[in-house]
């Protein structure tokens, strides 16, 4: 399949999040052949799982819709989902990529009519809700999923559920005999837009994530605020489903910490500032948000947004790295212990819910790559002399806007390679 088509004129983009889609589309709209591979069943990546963006409070899927339309209208990008690179070999201008394709058990006859989901009884934690909610084991990842095709979760293969799904489909779209396969792609350049993953919050022991019921991460909080999310957009706390009106936002949860992530993840401050506005919108004047921070990093015109939030009477700021969180066993409330370092004020503050502004770490794992793809100590991709380039959060912790800039730049570097005109890099 794809392997035979691609040539050294082709650009391989790994990762179908906003950075990967951008790199692929920008290159294709310059007339280049692109193969875009994504390990999940749909494009869109993590930004799709955000409710809104700072500083405009606009909706990520609005941009996704535009990008999907660009994609549908452009035949130069070939998309492979459920596809992961296992190894890349070769050199600038001449790479060979081994791509593992996981079975979807649904072919492109699928019309997304949803009969299979109706037939299936088994449910799985919804990976597109950070496992907060549950969905049928035959599912469309989300309303904006591309390709707009259902997926059968491997867990039901061989079960009656799988047979029921097959029986329910009138278009012969359910194919239970699909097997994992590995394809080989010849490409000239590779853009690694493999994105980020939230740092494992359970490892930040004093905050008791996993131990205390009402401690969640900032990415989970996005899902709680999102009408498409598990609570239908109502900000309810996990322990008892009570309305979370008094919310603590704990900055640098994993970031700027040599016990965890050395680097500053850059987006967390803005993300928390944004999330205080979710709380305000949900509960009006009853809302209480407290941001516990070391430094608020609202860079360039994000400062305007910071000032707006500072002026919000429902939001307060405490310059303090919270020492530990304790749970009030009766109420399930969280009690934050620490010291406000601006003048030394000790606090034991009670909140309905604590949100950990969780750090970003690179998601790229266990792929054999040639040495011309250098990584820094944190696992971010650095500039190298080869024909492979990091884009977006694979290269540095970035907000969406900067990730897109980075991906656009990476697309040009890849074009230089396949155009075979690039001069010798001097780094």
């Amino acid at each position, binding site marked *: 399949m794809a392997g035979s088509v691609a040539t050294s004129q082709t650009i391989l983009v790994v990762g179908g999040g*906003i950075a990967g889609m951008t790199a692929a589309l920008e290159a294709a*709209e310059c007339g280049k052949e692109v193969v875009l591979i994504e390990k999940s069943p749909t494009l869109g990546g993590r930004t799709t799982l955000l409710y809104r963006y700072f500083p*405009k409070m*606009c*909706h*990520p899927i*609005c*941009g996704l*819709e*535009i*990008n999907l*339309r*660009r994609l*549908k*209208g*452009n035949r130069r990008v070939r998309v492979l989902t459920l596809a992961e690179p296992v190894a890349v070999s070769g050199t600038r201008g001449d790479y060979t990529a081994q791509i593992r394709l996981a079975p979807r058990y649904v072919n*492109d*006859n699928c*019309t*997304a*009519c949803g009969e299979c989901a109706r037939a299936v009884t088994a449910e799985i934690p919804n990976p597109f809700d950070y496992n907060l909610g549950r969905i049928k084991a035959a599912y469309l990842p989300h*309303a*904006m999923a591309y390709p*707009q095709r259902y997926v059968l979760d491997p867990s039901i293969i061989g079960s009656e559920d799988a047979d029921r799904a097959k029986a329910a489909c*009138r*278009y012969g779209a359910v194919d239970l005999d699909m097997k994992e396969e590995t394809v080989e792609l010849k490409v000239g350049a590779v853009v690694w837009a493999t994105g980020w993953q939230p740092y494992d919050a359970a490892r930040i022991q004093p905050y008791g994530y996993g131990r205390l019921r009402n401690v969640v991460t900032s990415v989970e909080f996005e899902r709680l605020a999102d009408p*498409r999310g598990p609570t239908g957009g109502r900000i309810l706390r996990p322990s008892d489903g009570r309305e979370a009106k008094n919310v603590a936002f704990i900055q640098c949860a994993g970031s700027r910490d040599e016990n965890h992530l*050395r*680097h*500053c993840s*850059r987006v967390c401050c803005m993300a928390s500032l944004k999330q205080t506005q979710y709380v305000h919108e949900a509960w009006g004047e009853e809302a209480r948000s407290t941001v516990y921070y070391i*430094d608020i*990093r609202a*860079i*360039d*015109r994000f*400062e305007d947004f910071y000032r707006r939030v500072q002026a919000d009477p429902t939001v307060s700021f405490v*310059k303090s790295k919270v020492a530990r969180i304790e749970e009030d066993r009766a109420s399930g409330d969280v009690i934050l212990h620490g010291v406000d*370092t*601006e*003048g030394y004020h000790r606090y034991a503050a009670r909140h309905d819910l604590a949100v950990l502004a969780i750090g970003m770490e690179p998601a790229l794992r266990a792929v054999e790559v040639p040495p011309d793809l250098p990584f*820094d*100590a*944190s696992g971010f991709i*650095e*500039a190298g002399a080869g024909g492979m380039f990091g884009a977006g959060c694979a290269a*540095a912790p970035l907000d*969406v*806007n900067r990730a*897109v*800039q*980075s991906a*656009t*730049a990476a697309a*040009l*570097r890849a*074009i*230089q390679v396949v155009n075979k*005109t*690039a001069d010798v890099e001097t780094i």
Partner: protein
Amino acid sequence: MAETKTAAYICQGCGIGERLSTRQLAQIAQKEGKMALVREHPFLCGAEGVGLIRDDIEREAVTHVLIAACSRRAKTEAFHFPTVALARANLREGVLWSQPEADEAAGLTQEMANDYVRMGCAELKKTKLPLGNPLAATNRRILVVGGGVSGLTAALEAARAGYQVVLVEKERALGGWAAKLHKRVPFREPHADPADTGIEQLIAQVTGHPRIRVHLGATLLETRGAPGRFSVQVSVESGAAVTEEVGSIVQATGFTLYDAGKLPALGYGKTPDVVDQAGLERLARQAAAAGGAIRRPSDGAEVGSVVFVQCAGQRDEGGSHLPYCSGHCCATSIKQAMYFKDANPEVDTVVIYTDLRVPGSGEDFYRSAQRKGVTFTKGRVASVEPASGGCKVSFRDLILDEDVALEADLVVLATGQVPNSGVNIELADDDPAKAAQVPILNLAYRQGKDMPQLKHGFTDSHFICFPYETRRTGIYAAGPVRRPMDMAQAVEDATGAALKAIQAVENAAAGRAAHPRSGDLSYPIVRIEGCTQCKRCTVECPFGAIDEDESRFPVFNESRCRRCGTCMGACPVRVIGFENYSVDTVGAQIKAVDMPDEFSEKPRVLLLACENDAYPALDMAALQRRVYSAFVRVIPVRCLGSVNTIWITDALNSGYDGVMLMGCKHGEDYQCHFVKGSELANYRMGKIDDTLKQLGLETERVATYEVAITDVARVARLIDDYVAKILEIGLSPMKGFA
């Protein structure tokens, strides 16, 4: 061109066949729709169904295809027939999935489907296959304005991709700010020490590049034309003017340091021992040249203690200085403190900050400075005054919660970046501020000489997902002129801008639209003979694409056009349109709807929905099987800005009981992908009330809504509420006369 042959294909899949009489739909397509060929198929998007259509196109010479199946947003790969004109009737999401399954509902559901087939046929007959802009302009050269790090990078990266570049720099030398620096903040691990700027190598690579031509001491006298055919008058060092023909432009005109002279409270101007960051770089370069320590300006004594005041004249809440944060200054002060510490650890270096902002690996740079003994103090500086043998810095120590003063030989003010973005074209011509501004691009555009600015004078994009979308097609901002930034970001930004410039010339050459309708081959076609020179199109085009000729007729620069149709919506005499999207394609659909009489109690509501947000929201509502009224008829529009009021009046005249318009949020945080489209629509609809009154109609009969793509539940609710209101105020009195 071959004569028109229309064909309609009605899908029976996804339950359409069960819940609707596709037979009836087929008859309508044939008898009313006058389709030459009509076929029903159980599974149209399947290989066999698609094959059937292909065969008809090849064997039966079908030129126009109507797909009556699912939403135009679904199955686009299957229904991809590039050689024919295409229309889609949305029976699945638009009817089946948004209407109740109950038998008693079947009647209304069928009526709805029938109308969508009628509308599809009507649209199809008015549609032509877009063939691309015949005036495609093919100049692929790229102009870079500005010879600092951003400009040099953009030029080099574009050249490395194989493109010819001409670079214009107003100074007599390349390098910009970077050339004035002693060292720069490190880009790579270990992020521990200041690094060489590398500017000499960069300049050498640019000047030595065979595909790059450089003009020094040069400015732009005039820039006219469009992507693929810009003609730029450059005044060069000799004073002569040369003309450069280019296809696209990168504006990397950088920044000017905020005038520290406006900060007397911080001692600037009161003593030479208070400098800004540029001043410190100068001192550091002098010291390096002299091979000694940094000396203070007043008496040339070696600096034994230095204080860095962050956010000087920045993040200002009083409104008298810069309101924003320039992002790089914390790292820059850290770097400058290292100048001292690396030379002599005994020098006292204190950085007074309120929030230390060193994102990413900048944290390592911060740690490195602490390791070197730089002291960081969270505080607010009240004043800097000359003192015996140095400066006295009075500040509030926010940690120790006390007012203190400390003495230092030298004080460095971290002032901010002010963009060099030329003229603010939004200012009135008689505004003195505007008079003081010197244009940079000198665009010969009807809407002004420079690019529109977003905020605080920066030429940034408004879009999170599309940072390069300026409002002047083919002209891209890069570096600190777009947003305050450091050198590492400027390099990345300039590389991205270079790609967009390349993309712009490729699109122009192919006659394709640029973002957000990338690849769209349709373009505005004007019946100029009908034009009344009212100038609305030239004034309202969000992208300044339309100029005026000597006789004040509009000049459409197709490759500057984004195909939003705002001009079409604006045109009172309706002489502007696209092959596949025009006053007629939509008007015909409106008229095609079967209008029940006034006694039927079946109102008809026209919903014009923005295809970028409202229409997908409707699709997703259907995907969730959210039911809404069967009395609504939805027509997607490219942008609410393209809605011509004639559609509204036609609809009301032909008996519709109400018209809903759903577009994107406008105002400061607008989400309209065509910037001004929804705002203009809102403005126009504000004025439609008079028309309604003339017609003797209630103003409620036209309603405009801001709808976001996430308003999935809301769209259905809005429709039902509106229909309820219509039933409440009663059906339209116009019905009889239709």
